[in-house]
């Protein structure tokens, strides 16, 4: 577990350093994600590896980590009030169409198993729901 955390933090640290060095406009954590993926692939980490356990823990509780930022509606909502209609309708409309476009594009471009497999990949069971506390 501790080793897993150390690896994850190191990946982010390297990512942040790279981003700052080259002045890239993306978060270091995204580079860190690629590095962590590379690390897991390199060591062929099984599901009970410390990296996997630490990673599962962080991924499982991800939704709650967004809460402090989303509570920001309290502070920044008033700034949009004067143009609330174009702001909300524009953001929501653009979001719906982006989701539909991406969903349909992905469906059209998805790789199809030529033969043998009668279905597209095994359907995943309902993975552990995030935020399971009790």
């Amino acid at each position: 577990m501790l080793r897993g955390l150390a690896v994850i933090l190191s990946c982010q640290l390297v990512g942040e350093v790279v981003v700052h060095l080259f002045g890239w406009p993306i978060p270091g954590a995204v580079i860190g994600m690629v590095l962590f993926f590379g690390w897991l692939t390199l060591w062929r980490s099984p599901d009970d590896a410390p990296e996997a356990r630490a990673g599962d823990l962080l991924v499982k509780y991800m939704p709650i980590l967004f809460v402090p930022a989303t509570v920001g509606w309290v502070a920044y909502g008033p700034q949009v009030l004067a143009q609330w209609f174009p702001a909300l309708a524009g953001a929501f409309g653009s979001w719906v169409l982006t989701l539909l476009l991406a969903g349909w594009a992905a469906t059209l471009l998805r790789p199809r198993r030529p033969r043998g497999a009668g279905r597209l990949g095994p359907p995943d069971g309902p993975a552990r729901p995030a935020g399971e506390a009790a």
Partner: protein
Amino acid sequence: MNLSETWAWFTTSPLTPLTLTVGLYWACDKLWRRLGHHALLTPILTASALIGGVLLLTGWDYAAYAEGTSFLTFLLGPATVALGLPLHRQASKVIEGAPMVLGTVLLGAVFSVLSGYWFATWLGATHEMALTMAPKSATTPIAIALVQQLGGIAPVAVLFVMVAGISGAVIGPWILTLARVTDPRARGLALGVASHGIGTARALQEGQTQGAFAGLGMGLTGLVISLSVTGLIPV
């Protein structure tokens, strides 16, 4: 008894906002499960609404609340790195799906920026507001950096990022089902592209495949938006 000293500690310690956040989120999560995962009760939506309500009622400054809960916000970085894990578990599917991922991300990211800017403009928003909306499908840190660079209003950008994210968490899966997008890879990818990290967290609740493709979609969409936004919209 040392009332005033205790009160001073209570109102400034990070423990208070952290307890409020974790406690209310837990209660909201419990409620969501109890009522059969109803979309409108998605914990991130209800918890943010309730906590915001508490801040407004008590006159608690948001900046102080955000400071107190910065520990949670900080962990978003490592959690984003950890998204490499579902990616690793689904590596063969991801490699097989490379053309799908690249095509969808390019199309989705460019469309999201263009439609965000032009919809807002056509509906009568100011140029500044429209600029602020353009990168809403990127994750928060990317969107803030880009909006600053473009000359928009950075804190408001967070709000638009949240509209894209929370919509994805609340009704994203339902819209995809209505639109007959059933392939788990396509569902994950669409949620990651349109709704970044919050959509990815929601996709992970559907399954590991959805989560892996969402995480990849989120990362690449952030990349494409940051590289293309200045060329796509009139600054």
